[in-house]
């Protein structure tokens, strides 16, 4: 039984649909918007509307942009011979923060999970193969999550590109920087051992 008015309850239910928002947070948000000054509420709606109208995927890489192509694709200083494949546009921001990658990107907008009905036709994987065929990439970096669906997507891409003269790499997995080995779980440690590197001693 609901203790709220129908309009209030509907608002709670809508907020509850947002990712990471539970029933309690949905109530707080509803309450916040109910008490928000009208001009601030209008501004909030305007910002959301503008964002919906203007932000869309880049026609090349499917990163988010407000123009035809994103700032990374239009940057002439970027290395166009290397493409980094990510699951979400948000992953690009995380990689860009490192400052260690200067190539271009390709956003898949998801990862393969046929058991949940997500096959290659549901994500931007064909577009990736088209780009690879069309442009002379020398390396594909797979920066996909280390999950079951991320692994499957990597395997699929590797398999489909096996006859292309292109270098395929995947980000290393292992112990996070600044963390203690004693707290690492067995799977992470095993991956770290598997991906251990030879240390070159310089003269």
């Amino acid at each position, binding site marked *: 039984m609901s203790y709220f008015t129908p309009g209030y309850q509907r608002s709670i239910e809508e907020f509850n649909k947002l990712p990471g928002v539970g029933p309690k947070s949905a109530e707080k948000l509803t309450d916040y918007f109910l008490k928000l000054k009208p001009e601030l509420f209008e501004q909030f709606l305007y910002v959301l509307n503008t964002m919906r109208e203007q932000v869309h995927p880049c026609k090349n890489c499917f990163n988010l942009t407000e123009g035809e192509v994103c700032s990374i694709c239009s940057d002439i200083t970027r290395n166009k011979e290397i493409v980094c494949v990510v699951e979400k546009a948000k992953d690009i921001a995380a990689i860009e923060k490192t400052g260690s990658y200067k190539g271009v990107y390709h956003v898949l907008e998801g990862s*393969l999970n*046929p*058991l949940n009905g997500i*096959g*290659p*036709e549901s994500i931007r994987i064909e577009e990736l193969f088209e780009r690879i065929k069309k442009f002379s990439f020398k390396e594909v970096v797979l920066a996909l999550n280390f999950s*079951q669906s991320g*692994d*499957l997507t990597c*395997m*699929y891409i590797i*398999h*489909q590109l096996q006859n292309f003269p292109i270098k395929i790499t995947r980000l290393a997995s292992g112990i996070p920087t600044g963390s203690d080995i004693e707290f690492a779980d*067995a*799977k992470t440690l*095993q991956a770290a051992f598997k991906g251990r590197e030879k240390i070159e001693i310089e003269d």
Partner: protein
Amino acid sequence: MFVDHFKATNFRCFDNVECEFSRYLNVVYGNNGSGKSNFLEAIFYVLQGNGFRTKKDSYLLKYNAPFLRTEAKFTSQSIEKTVSVAWEKEAGKKITINGRENEKTASLFEECNVIIMTPATPELVKGGPEHRRKFIDRIHAKENPAYLSILNKYSITFRTRNLLLRRRLSNPHDKDMYSTLTHNIRNLSKIIQSERKNTIMQMQEVFFNICEQLNLPSLKNIRIMYAPSPIDAIDEYQLMQKEIQRGTSLIGSHLDRLSLRRDSRSLRIYGSEGEQKITAFVLKLCEFYFLETRTKNVPIVMLDDFQSELDNDNFNKMLAFIRPKAQIFLTSLHHEVVDNPDKVFKVENEEVHGEV
């Protein structure tokens, strides 16, 4: 490891149960249908995150109750810990270990060592090879938790591949996906088969030693035979056609054959009922030995109606093998089933009472 304190709410036939256990032999007795196995299953549930007779949590819920909850205080490698497993229809399962919420069943599997022997245990010998594969995999996963993730990956690859085969690779990208999954299933099978082979070799030696210790000469020449399913050198096109026709994966380690043989004759077919039972229970003792020595965490042993499956001599021999080392829960119709039990519990009228 030992469970010292245990509590359950709305579990099967019980409203509320709370018990302090002995760290040695606990006997649980009561009439047929009184709920002895339910009580054992409740303890198993809090330590492993699922029942031993069903994997469905809803089946464990007391009729018309809104939720079930089990909690225990246990000591593992001299460290006291707490665990709780609760389930309700809307929220699902919630596992808390030492105050850490939202833990997974796999964490419980790593944390707690439990061995269960029930009247269904002889299926290990009498049943199909899947029982034996699961048995070997479980033991190896205890020693090497990363193996559990390999098995999970295999299971998902296998299910995905079967899904594509059932729809006869009819979607536009299905053939490409099938080819990737075939590659995957081969790679994972190679790892699984190599791990199984090593574990079985060690298991054979342990089996032989336990038969010596228990003075079971008739079992000493039983061999654990492993025949990995061939995963290479099969014509790809023929394989695909055959698999589409059958709608299931016909390559992979899920087809490995694992049998127990005496003089090259299968114990499953030619063994007597008694031989099959004793062999199955000796295999469980091997599991006990593996867990005790490899994880350095002596398993808790649950024996559900164990004595009804064995003659007195074998029952006493097997109990003597584990009794000095492990905490044991033994269900029986009568409390005088063993000499000097350390604690006795009577199950009656959907309640459990400790007796001195």
